[in-house]
């Protein structure tokens, strides 16, 4: 194919977009609505996934140091804990720190205990992977100087199962929605091509090769996808910008955070754009196939 023919195909595809008027408008609208739906859904699901991660990562093991342990034992314990495989971080908190936390959380009545502090020194230990928490906890409880270990046994397993189920359901929903979107968009494009099957036949009878007929249609599908993704991208960027502006400050310091505006929003925009263009091209290609047999 000569370069001027490719130029011709580009020109024809744009011209056809204009001359098809209402058909173009209908297809672009369908693509817009579908991609907007996909975009909003992806925003929600990805953030729910983030929340699940945050919840999981918040799980920590509280290991109480026995009263007999002196400073030497405590510093040995710290080294030992750091040596356990799967430990991400260790934070040491004295019983005085613990008490002041209590006072902060529950009020000045707890100052009564300042004369005779019944609390223990504590190591807060986090596992690199939330799922390893249980193993790490078992190893911790075997260490010398550890009185007992708490990590919400039983509860966190339930939480993990719940979050995993949630994530899987989300994944299935996203896949189902993507599939539906592909079906809807390529079907819209199919309708516009079916309406023009006689044109394809005429082109073939006048001596056009399959590719000569196909390329302008494929380019037209690409333009439809491109045009249809502009509005969804704009709306989703604006929507997420406002959500992060509004919720971001309120969540500051909390364990649950939204995904940062950048680069997440660029990834979602790219996804929408690529989906639109890819489905546009693919839809045209598939729909035109059977009309080329002339």
């Amino acid at each position, binding site marked *: *194919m*000569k370069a*001027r*023919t490719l130029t*011709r195909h580009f020109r024809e595809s744009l011209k*056809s977009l204009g*001359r*098809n008027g209402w058909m173009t408008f209908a297809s672009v609208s369908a693509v817009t609505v579908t991609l907007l739906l996909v975009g909003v859904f992806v925003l929600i699901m990805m953030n729910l996934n983030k929340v699940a991660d945050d919840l999981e990562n918040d799980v920590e093991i509280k290991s109480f140091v026995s009263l007999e342990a002196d400073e030497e034992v405590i510093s040995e314990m710290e080294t030992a804990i750091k040596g356990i495989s799967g430990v991400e971080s260790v934070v040491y908190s004295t019983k005085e720190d613990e008490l002041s936390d209590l006072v902060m959380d529950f009020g000045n009545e707890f100052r009564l205990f300042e004369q005779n502090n019944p609390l223990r020194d504590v190591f807060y230990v986090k596992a690199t992977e939330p799922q390893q928490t249980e193993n790490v906890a078992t190893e911790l409880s075997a260490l010398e100087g550890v009185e007992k270990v708490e990590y919400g046994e039983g509860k966190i397993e339930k939480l993990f199962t719940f979050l995993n189920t949630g994530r899987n359901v989300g994944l299935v929903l996203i896949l189902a929605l993507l599939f539906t979107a592909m079906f809807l968009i390529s079907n819209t494009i199919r309708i516009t091509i079916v309406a*023009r099957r*006689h*044109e394809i*036949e*005429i*082109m*073939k*009878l*006048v*001596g*056009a*090769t399959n590719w*000569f007929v196909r390329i302008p249609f494929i380019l037209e599908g690409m333009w439809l996808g491109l045009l249809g993704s502009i509005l969804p991208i704009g709306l989703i960027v604006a929507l997420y910008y406002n959500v992060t502006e509004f919720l971001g400050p309120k969540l500051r310091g909390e364990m649950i955070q939204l995904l940062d505006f950048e680069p997440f929003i660029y990834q979602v925009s790219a996804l929408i754009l690529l989906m639109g263009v890819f489905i546009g091209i693919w839809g045209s290609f598939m729909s035109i196939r059977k009309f080329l047999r*002339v």
Partner: protein
Amino acid sequence: MIQMKNVYKKYPNGIVALNGMNVEIKQGEFVYIVGPSGAGKSTFIKMMYREESPTSGQMLVNGVDLAKIKRKNVPLLRRQIGVVFQDFKLLPRLNVYENVAFALEVIEEKPEAIRKRVLEVLDLVGLKHKARMFPRELSGGEQQRISVARSIVNTPKVVIADEPTGNLDPETSWDIMNLFERINASGTTILMATHNREIVNTMRHRVIAIEGGLIARDEVGGDYGYEG
């Protein structure tokens, strides 16, 4: 230039359209194909540009056997022959100029050459002044003239016409026929299926009558021969 040897065509539904046909048409001839509906006329014509292919037999156009031609080479064959249809088959979304230019864009002609040649043939069919109009804005006769212009724009050796006057009133039919006469006078072979007795009897040329999938009559300067 067109040669059929024992061409046989059976459709999937069992109908035998051509039943061992033999015919030879030389370069520069003007041939009418006549015969009752369903006799095989359309099949005969459609085989020339490979809309249908023979079930068996040999069918040579410009030395190429259409019974054996590969699917991907069909466009190349169609570029060497011009086809005019009863229903014009113009592209509705392209204007007059673009419709005619399409046949040249297909062969990747240079834009300047396309422009020159398209205006030339539009002038020949007398519609240069309507180049920017769309098919729906033209009368049937005008649309058919555009279709004729498209068929000759890449100077084919043969023009095939399937009842080109079938949808036209008598007066415009004569305009179209005069065009074909001029094209034929420049050395182009014309093959035309028709039901128009008056035309066949007035503009005398070779007449091939097809009946029951066979050639019933073949005479140069013959008349239509059927009761209208």
